């Protein structure tokens, strides 16, 4: 039995939620049938979130404050990565201060990419961070729009402190096309649900499950948790029944998250790990042009795992939105008139971005060795004593406690989620800077409010298709 496996997990679900009833209500003039799907809420990305930012947040949760120094590899799986030719995982690596000697790779092209890439990472056998992050987008008034969601799950992999080890696996590959999205297309094209259910899930998943059970040398009665994502309702229960599974079917996270594409099976795995006990086995299935089945056995070490936000914490951390058009705008489903201020160029000077990466990527302040002042940004000389920067010690601010010193709600600036909340953030360690404040609920924001840092898109350069990232801040208390 391998002594390599999952050593920690983390999750992130965007705070923004919309009740499905609001989506159905907006479309009832032409698609009254959507009302039947109008149960619960789904998560959605704010204008400044994407698969990369969610991946960073999930990774931070999985690392739980520990250093990324020992990582040898980082894997990122998604069907909605922002770049077709730019290593998305390298952006995540920069944000979490991963060492430069790390291997990085992106996986995608199928909603099975999450489980397939996790299998690869587990085969790799070296200390790694595996992240699946996805925000599939449905066309307005489609079943996908109302049922899809967004989220990310991350796992640290290693040989020490293994909380779950892979004891069985199998993959089935079959050119079954339930849906597809061509390169460059915004929305997918999906075939009839009944056929997908009967010929797809009902046949391909059990084949992979049987093979994985055989690989593990156990029967289905040896499995405690069954996790299989699907945007189709009740499919997981039907497959569980067909393989005579009698344990606990892991929640499909329909309420509060929605179907999160390539990340979904991994969110379910993370959710199962929140409650699984040592010795229990978790069966995870990924579906897409076949299926992967992975069987994990939970170890004693899980009882000693430090507490984290996880899936439950992420789902509970919600800010409700009452506007369908706001949701639609963030999904780039509507092109509203933002006014001439929005014409400002969002071009990023890649040279400057690279020069300043040491402080902007992982949000590092500098601490002056001469006077101990912690300062951001780091200019050539200390803000207090003018000592040169070369002796600054790098102090990460991403996890440093902070609060609001001053703030305002700016209705004048072009901002895709008006108003733009911004103000001075005072860190407990003495650092201070003016920052954007995001995911602010209807109560607004007040002086003294406790904040945490979040990794977001600072600038979306739509003309050139480039996202520039930076850190923002958000109230710890949601909504």
């Amino acid at each position, binding site marked *: 039995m391998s002594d390599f496996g999952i050593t920690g997990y983390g999750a992130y679900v965007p705070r923004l939620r919309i009740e499905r009833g609001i989506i159905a209500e907006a479309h009832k003039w032409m698609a009254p049938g959507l009302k039947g799907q109008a149960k619960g809420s789904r998560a959605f990305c704010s204008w400044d979130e994407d698969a990369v930012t969610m991946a960073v947040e999930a990774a931070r949760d999985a690392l739980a404050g520990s250093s990324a120094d020992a990582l040898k590899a980082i894997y990122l799986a998604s069907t909605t990565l922002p770049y077709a030719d730019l290593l998305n995982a390298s952006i995540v690596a920069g944000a979490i201060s991963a060492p430069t000697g790390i291997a990085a790779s992106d996986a995608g092209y199928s909603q099975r990419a999450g489980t397939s890439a996790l299998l690869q990472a587990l085969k790799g056998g070296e200390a790694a961070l595996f992240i699946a992050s996805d925000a599939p987008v449905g066309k307005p008034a489609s079943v996908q729009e109302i049922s899809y969601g967004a989220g990310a799950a991350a796992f640290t992999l290693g040989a020490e402190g293994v909380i779950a080890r892979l004891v069985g696996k199998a993959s089935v590959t079959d050119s079954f096309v339930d849906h597809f999205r061509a390169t460059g297309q915004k929305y997918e094209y999906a075939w009839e649900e009944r056929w997908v259910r009967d010929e797809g899930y009902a046949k391909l998943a059990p084949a992979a499950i049987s093979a994985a059970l055989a690989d593990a040398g156990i029967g289905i009665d040896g499995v405690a948790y069954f996790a299989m994502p699907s945007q189709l309702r009740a499919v997981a229960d039907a497959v569980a029944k067909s393989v005579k599974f009698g344990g606990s079917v892991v929640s499909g996270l329909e309420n509060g998250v929605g179907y999160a594409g390539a990340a979904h099976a991994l969110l379910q795995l993370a959710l199962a790990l929140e409650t699984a006990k040592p010795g229990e086995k978790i069966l995870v299935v990924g579906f897409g042009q076949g299926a992967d089945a992975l069987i994990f056995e939970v170890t004693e070490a899980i009882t000693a795992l430090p507490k984290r936000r996880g899936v439950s914490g992420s789902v509970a951390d919600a800010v409700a939105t009452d506007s369908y058009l706001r949701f639609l705008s963030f999904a780039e489903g509507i092109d509203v008139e933002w006014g001439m201020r929005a014409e400002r160029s969002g071009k990023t000077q890649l040279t*400057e971005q690279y020069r300043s990466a040491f402080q902007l990527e992982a949000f590092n302040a500098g601490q002056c060795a001469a006077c101990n002042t912690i300062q951001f940004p780091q200019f050539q000389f200390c803000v207090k004593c003018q000592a040169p920067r070369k002796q600054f010690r790098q102090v990460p601010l991403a996890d440093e406690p902070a609060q609001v010193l001053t703030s305002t709600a700016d209705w004048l*600036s072009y901002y895709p989620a008006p108003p733009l909340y911004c103000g001075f953030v005072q860190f407990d360690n003495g650092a201070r800077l003016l920052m954007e404040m995001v995911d602010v609920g209807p109560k607004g924001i007040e002086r003294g409010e406790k904040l945490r840092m979040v990794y977001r898109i600072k600038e979306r350069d739509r003309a050139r298709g480039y996202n520039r990232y930076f850190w923002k801040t958000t109230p710890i208390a949601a909504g």
Partner: protein
Amino acid sequence: MATGIKDKVAILGMGCSKFGERWDAGSQELMAESFEEALADAGIERKQIDAAWLGSCMDAVNIGNSAIPASTALRLNGIPFTRVENMCATGTEALRGAAYAVASGAVDIALAIGAEKLKDTGYGGLPPPFKGTFNDMWMPMASAPAGFAQLADGYRARYGISKEELKRAIAHVSWKSHQNGVHSPKAHFQKAVSMETIMNAPMISDPLGLFDCSGVSDGSACAIVTTPEIARALGKKELVTVKALQLSISSGQETAMNTWDGSYVPNTRNAAARAYKEAGISTPREQISLTEVHDCFSITELVTMEDLFLSEDGHAVRDYLDGVYDATGKIPCQIDGGLKCFGHPIGASGLRMAYEVYLQLLGRAGARQLKAPSIGLTHNLGGVPYLGIAGISILGLH
């Protein structure tokens, strides 16, 4: 040992264009308008100008780089002509260049002209700022009112003032300026506005509503300066001289250290202390007759009264509500209506403020003339309260 420039420079003449939405005029026409008035006021010919400084801030919507557009517009051939830019202190910076040239003895007569054409943008308000390739990567892309609105939280917290009380005091700031603007024929806005309208205007950047913000206008203002001796030789009887010209610029302490509490503008305090010293003013509350300060936003003006040591710390709210800075008060502020009524064509504003002080000191301010003022102060605040530029000039009778 530096002795400052007190009384080394006299104003020979000044001019100011009509401010407003000047659909009829570009920067060149605006400059010509203020220049012709100043030239006539000075009683000199174009060729007597030895050197010139142009203040102009926004390249993208204005005349472009260098002083060439100004030398061309004014047909000032072959003299040293320098363009300066220091955000909202640009106009004062141009005056500083011209005054220093005269004070140094390098030239006899120098011109300072500021102009800004803001209404060629196609929308209201200022264009989004470019903060530099590095700063744009991390600073929020916030508007000017969002920057100044930060003062409200800091000020309220320090002095324990409720949101409602502060809103009322800053509304009085704007109300007073609109009252004054009625008597300013060159102002953009010349109508009184009720407290109710000001208090209930749409929010721009909390707590600043529409009427807490200065207007956006086109305009130009101009000064011709020389030595007091030359001014007298040219026949000037009553002289307005420069008593002080000071500038203070942030090094980032307010934004990157944890000592500033958000309730005041350190730059204004620095520049004011130095300007009072240069001018020999020891009790500003008693000695200063009037001020024209940077009321880009109402909260700025309120805080500025403390930063200029005219109100005691924490007393500006009460002083405003008591009318200390009204036209009939002890130290009238924005007797011409201020940025509130003139708008803020950036390169011109500092010189427009000096123009009003100059008129008041010479008793030429018409319906808004104050009784026997002797010392006037102008104040500009560029950038944002926590990362900016304060420019102060003190002008007085010689």
